[in-house]
Every structure is written in C-alpha cells, then in structure tokens.
C-alpha cells in the first residue's frame, strides 16, 4: 500500500508509535498495542495528545486528513505485524458510535486494506467472521495476509 501517510516514531520497548496529523490543525497522535485476554491478540489503542498533555479518544475524521491518518494507522499495524508475524491485532471504538465510524472508515478503504491484511469482524453475537462493509460489528481482528511481504 503506497498511499500518503505520516512519518511515525517507534518506541519498540513499549510497542508505541507516535505521529502528527497535519490537517486543519496539528494534532499529535499515539498508537500503542496492549495485551488482551486472548493469547497472541493485541489491542490497538489510539489516542490524540491534547495541548495539556492529556490523552483523548482518537479521531480520524475531524482534522481534514482522514485518509492520510488511516493510511498511517495501516502502516503502523503492518509494521507491528511484520515485527510480530504470528500475532493478531484487535481494535474497537470507545463507544458504539465510534465503532460505527471505524467500520465506515475500514469499509471505505477496504479494497486497499485487503491487499495487505486479512480483516475479520466480531459480531454482536460474539462470532468472528470475515469483514464485509456495512456489516454491523463490535470490533475488528487484523492479521497480515503474507507476513513476508513488506510495504
């Protein structure tokens, strides 16, 4: 995937990636991967760093650079999975509305994303199924399609 994306800094020891969204305003953003209750499944946590240093829930659409931010998140996920090729990444929104926003964003970029990733959706019925745009879901599980292919 060669879409324009932001340069990101990596802190491997804490599995954290930082970049700056430069749309209408300049918003530093952080991504960190945390262990979940499922072995080999890491939770992707996204945050906006506020001017006061506190962390807010990540936003992908408010700064006029949604596609570039999403491409950056995709690059970060790809980097993390290249480093940890047997692992999986889970992500969900902090509210149902935000999960719907993520679902729309993933659906919008689906044709680009499936080149590199296998994307599955966790349904409200707790079943994990292949992701389809417009499929209502509570979260997403991502893995690399081919761990040997780099960006």
């Amino acid at each position, binding site marked *: 995937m060669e879409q324009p994306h932001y340069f990101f800094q990596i802190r491997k020891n804490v599995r954290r990636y930082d970049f700056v969204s430069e749309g209408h305003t300049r918003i530093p953003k*952080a991504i960190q991967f945390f262990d979940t209750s499922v072995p080999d499944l890491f939770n992707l946590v996204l*945050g906006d760093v506020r001017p006061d240093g506190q*962390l807010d829930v990540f936003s992908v659409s408010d700064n006029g650079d949604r596609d570039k931010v999403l491409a950056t998140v995709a690059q970060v996920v790809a980097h993390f999975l290249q480093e940890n090729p047997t692992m999986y990444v889970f992500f969900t929104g902090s509210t149902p509305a935000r999960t719907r926003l993520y679902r729309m964003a993933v659906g919008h970029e689906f044709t680009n994303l499936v080149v590199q990733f296998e994307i599955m959706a966790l349904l409200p019925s707790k079943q994990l199924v292949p992701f389809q745009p417009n499929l209502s879901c509570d979260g997403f599980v991502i893995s690399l399609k081919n761990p040997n292919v780099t960006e």
Partner: protein
Amino acid sequence: MKTLTEVPRKPRKMPRQEPGPFATMEELGRFKTNLANQLLEKSNVGEVLKQRRNH
C-alpha cells in the same frame, strides 16, 4: 391585548459522549483494553485464532 411571556430556555445539556480525557496512554490503554476484553469474553475469537495457528 395578549402579551407573550417569554419562557426562559432550559440550557441544553450536552453530555460528553466520549470517555476521557486520560492522563496517560497507559490509562487510556487500560480503559480500552477492558472494553476489548469485555467484547472478547465468551466470543469464539480465541478458538478461531487457535485453529488458524494450527493450520
């Protein structure tokens, strides 16, 4: 002649929809990962990933 009495408007309540803000990324991480673990609980995700590993 009737006079209209102005009814004072109730201030509109705009509750914050999103949680936070959080002091650190770790704090945000704990919140989001608790949420994730609740969603993963009783799901077939662990089983599906285990089967995929064995293939």
